[in-house]
């Protein structure tokens, strides 16, 4: 059963990687990275069960945290061109590009 789950997750991860490579827009790639992270969390968890070492779940939890913070940080950078304090919002919408 866990072998089946591992195979399914592996196939899904390969498909998401194809999307990551193909793009075409920047946001497709961010979405693919985020989705890949979710797959990885589940993958690590299932591997822990498959090898009988549930301690892997700690790593999975940590990976989930890092994945979320990383995605938000990347998107914040794209939107404001800065990671730290943001005082000025972009006016792209007014320019309408």
């Amino acid at each position, binding site marked *: *059963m866990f072998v089946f789950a591992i195979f399914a997750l592996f196939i899904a991860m390969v*498909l998401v990687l194809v999307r990551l490579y193909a793009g075409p*827009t920047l946001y497709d790639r961010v979405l693919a990275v*985020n989705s890949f992270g979710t*797959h990885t969390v589940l993958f690590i*968890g299932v591997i822990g069960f498959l090898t009988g070492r549930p301690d892997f*779940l700690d790593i999975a939890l940590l990976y989930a945290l890092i994945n979320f913070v990383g995605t*938000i940080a990347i998107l914040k950078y794209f939107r404001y061109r800065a990671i730290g304090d943001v*005082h000025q919002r972009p006016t792209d919408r007014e320019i309408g*590009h």
Partner: protein
Amino acid sequence: MSALEIIINLLSWFFIVSGSVFVVIGAVGTIRFPDFWSRLHAASITDSAGMILLVIGMCLQAGPTLVTVKLLIIGVFLFITGPTSTHAVANAALVTGLRPPEAEGLIGAEPEPIKPEGDDDA
């Protein structure tokens, strides 16, 4: 092996296998859908159905131990952050000017223009 164990085993089989199927379907959706906005929905299948079913299946397999608690914490965490990061991706795309293609006969709502001076919640 008692009858209860067999039932729990069968249930966790069902949950893990169907969760895996949903994960693959979500990934297939991210490949098949034609544009970014529809791919968001495919990715959220993995985030909701695939994740929930897999975590429930693994919980049943682990039984009443600390492992189940950890799995539930992971599940709750992904349950909250999954939609949040999906929303962040969609919102960043909208703000930078990407608009979803509207179906025939439908007119999409336009977001309100952001005031240039910005506000505190930025």
